[in-house]
């Protein structure tokens, strides 16, 4: 018998660990990985709520499903852009993309 809150705590840890990664990592791809963690944690939330609280319909599950697809699209675009950065700037250090500030 697993309490629902345990799922939620796990997912929120995953979420904020992702946020931490976004904030602290240097490598753009590592930042992107952190975003994946964030999205993934949200999908867990949806599934859990759906299963535990509102099992009559499949809303949460479908949101998770679509969320997975969206995160895939997002990753694809992001990786394209990151590779483009690599091509233009020669590295993918997030700290180097700070030319726009004035």
């Amino acid at each position, binding site marked *: 018998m697993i309490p629902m809150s345990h799922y939620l705590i796990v997912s929120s840890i995953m979420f904020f660990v992702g*946020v931490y990664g*976004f*904030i*602290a990592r240097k490598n753009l791809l590592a*930042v992107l990985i952190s975003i994946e963690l964030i999205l993934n944690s949200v999908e867990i939330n949806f599934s859990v709520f759906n299963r535990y609280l509102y099992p009559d319909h499949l809303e949460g599950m479908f949101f998770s499903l679509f969320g997975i697809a969206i995160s895939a699209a997002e990753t694809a675009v992001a990786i394209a852009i990151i590779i483009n950065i690599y091509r233009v700037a020669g590295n993918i250090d*997030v*700290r180097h*993309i*700070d*030319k*726009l*500030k004035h």
Partner: protein
Amino acid sequence: MEWLRFNDTLHIDLGILLDPLSVMMLTVVGVVALMVVVFSIGYMKGERGFGRYFGLLGLFVFSMLGLVVATNIFQMYIFWELVGASSYLLIGFYYTRPAAVKASQKAFIVTRFADLGFLIGILILSSYTGTFDFAALTADNAAIAVGPQANWAMALIFMGAAGKSAMFPLHIWLPDAMEGPTPVSALIHAATMVVAGVYLIARMFPVFQFAAPDVLVLITYVGAFTALFAAVIAITQTDIKRVLAFSTISQIAYMMVALGVADVAASTFHLFTHAFFKALLFLGAGAVIHAVHSNEMSRMGGLRKFMPITHITFLIACLSISGIPPFSGFFSKDEILVAAFHHNPVVFGVLLLVAGLTAFYMFRLYFRIFWGAHHYDRPPHEAPPIMTIPLIVLAVLTCVTGFVVPVHIDWAIASAGVVAAVIGIVVAWRFYAKPSDAPARLAARWAGFGQAASHRFYIDEAWLWVTRRIIFGGISRPVAWFDRHIVDGAMNAIGSGTVRVSETIEPVQGGKVQSYAILFVLSVLLITLLVFVLC
């Protein structure tokens, strides 16, 4: 004719009021103005701005007549101001001369200052009587109660009169006003405009008498003091026009005293006679100046041979002003002395002294111009007829006007006055008719006093200090500084403060994505917390 309506009760009318007083003034103004205009044709010949001169003269006469016939106090104030302005323009006629410009400004500003009192006085008076009209104000049944308001109002109105009539301490503009062309001085600063103050008080006299007798006492003392004060200064002046100017101040003060001691008739009578002989004096002086091209006594002397007509007429005027019978001055002065005697012996004493002094300085003037040694490069010549005719006419008037009004002469007092005058004349004759060292010795003994008197007791300096130091240095400069640096500075500070804040927060937007992310996430959390806490 209603000119401007302020509210249901107060309105300015423009009208014509003819009564003995105004008719008398009209006569004076008309005659003197005519004489002056005629005289000026000769005097101003060939001057730059000949046309302008007569234009301004016309403006002045218009204003003066408007003043005289005013039916209400506000109309009088209107023309009062116009008179002041035309006086300003005429004094500043020689506008390229800095002294003339200064004098004109001084005249205008000093009288303006006095007029401020006049205006406030009018405001007080009108707000509490509900009318401007002289007829209503001076009517026997006028509901004017004695009270602080009335005292204030009338005192302030007297301040206006004192400004125009050059009473101490507002007299300072008049001597300087002599920078104007001499005929102008004759007209404005001797015969007509300067007596407007006297006229005003005469016009309002019932109000003074019933509502503010205290002010009359004030007028008496101010008048007496001014009379003495001006006479003393007149003794030491060397510029003939300034001597005349101080003499004018002194004589007007005489009239004021007469008003103060409640003898309107004497006052106006003296006004009437004074106008002619003083105009005559000025025009005579004008003729002299015209001849020798200088105002200084030291450049004159022995002119009686060169300018006989001027000499005679001038002498008549001097006798008249000194109060020697049968010239007009005798009668009018006597009236005043009598009134003063009955009112207050001290004042009478002062006036008697002034009468002596008057005779002394007038004859000092006379002797130094027409007698004594002379040394001219080119001999001066008599003025042309166009200038001498007015002199003659005025001299005749001076002789006869004393008899116009049948007066009862109190010979006791009259003889006292005459004796004082004769003493003055004799002393002057002793001192100045022939070369003598008496004046020098006297001057040495009274050095400090003489010095002070010749500097007009430093009143000018005091005023200058007030204007320069207080108005400019003490108020205007600080105000201007305050405006630029505090008020404007505050406005600018708001602007630059905003820019400063903008500079300070600039690093927040440093181009780092991760800083943005921190901001984003923490803000979201903070907002959530705030919403929890606040709602």
